[in-house]
């Protein structure tokens, strides 16, 4: 296994770990906003690492550029849908829990 393959495999594994953590957060966190917080980590960093790992493995500039474009488009869609879901949750009156983290 070459150094590039090792790096790419590492990226894929760490990316998958982000997806796993995001999924657990989505299932276990109590309210809509913290679930979104967990989900966006998987969407942003997890997908970036997976795309970067696959781009390295492809060894092909065109495919790597296409994977980057896919990541950017997914990022755009994820950002705006998360924004819309958060707005809706706020409008529906979700309880925003800040009591422990925010000093008064």
């Amino acid at each position, binding site marked *: 296994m070459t150094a590039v393959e090792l790096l790419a495999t590492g990226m894929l594994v760490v990316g998958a770990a982000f997806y796993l953590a995001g999924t657990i957060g989505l299932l276990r966190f109590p309210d809509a906003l913290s679930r979104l917080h967990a989900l966006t980590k998987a969407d942003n960093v997890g997908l970036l690492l997976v795309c970067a790992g696959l781009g390295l493995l492809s060894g092909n500039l065109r495919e790597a550029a296409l994977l980057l474009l896919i990541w950017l488009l997914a990022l755009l*869609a994820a950002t705006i849908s998360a924004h819309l879901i958060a707005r809706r949750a706020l409008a529906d009156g979700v309880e925003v829990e800040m009591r422990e983290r925010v000093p008064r």
Partner: protein
Amino acid sequence: MNLAVDLSIAAGLVVLAWRSLAGRDLFRGIVMYIVFGLLLAVTWARLGSPDLAMAEAAIGAGVTGALLMVAYWRLRRISPAEPADPSPRRSHLAAAVALLSTGVVAAIGLAAVGAIGPGGIAGRALVEALPATGLGNPITGVLVVFRNLDTVLEVAVLLAAYLAVRAVLGDRGETLAQPPPQVARLVGALVGVVAPLSVLVAVYLLRVGSYLPGGAFQAGAVLAACGVLLLLTGRLRATADAGPWVRGSLVVGTVVFGLFGVAMLAFGEPLLAIPGTWAVYLIETAMMVSIAVTLMLLFAGAAGLGGGRR
């Protein structure tokens, strides 16, 4: 390793199918159905059928999911309270029907395993005849050249679906209730980027459809998804009457395909013969427009489309 992945996909499909049908929560059932469609697309991709994978993801999960969601939204407007028990009473025939269906599917599966492989009769004839069509993608070859009567009828079925919606709405000048448009500022940015890109992707899929995975159905579904986005953000508006552009777009696929097919009779060719690759492109473009507009109108539950808020 590969077997483990395939087995978990197969098990996931069964679980998702069960969850989408058996749950009491209608909304959850719809979400499960959409995830089922996505996993089915992955299945097609693993079976080496990227054409079917794309069509399943775009039409099966995407557009059908949007149709089910908007139908759910309209149901809740008609009767806001969640129905007490949407699942029908258990029938005595259920076990027998399930056993029979399992038997039929198993028999078909066994027959398929024992059948002549892809290099067999029809497949070999297709691969031998494909270069003569000037197309490199056997799926497009089958859809537009070898089995094109099926394809004409598929486009005609979409037209019939629109006519059914029209018949339900009647001539009273109605459209079904529309979800309120999303007006967040970021949504404008999304539409500004995604709408032109969707058109680009649709044209690309149509163009490469003759020699790579892609084609009129995938391209039409991408355009329809873009139209759903425009409807949801208020850029397009459902109208009670169809203008000449909408009417023309609805029938152009069936009409162009049909006219080509009949016109070839005058040249002594068989019915639905295709004169060349240029005709394939023309027919596929017309089909893409019809598929996109019909799916958008089905989502809107309206006879026509009009310009909306900028």
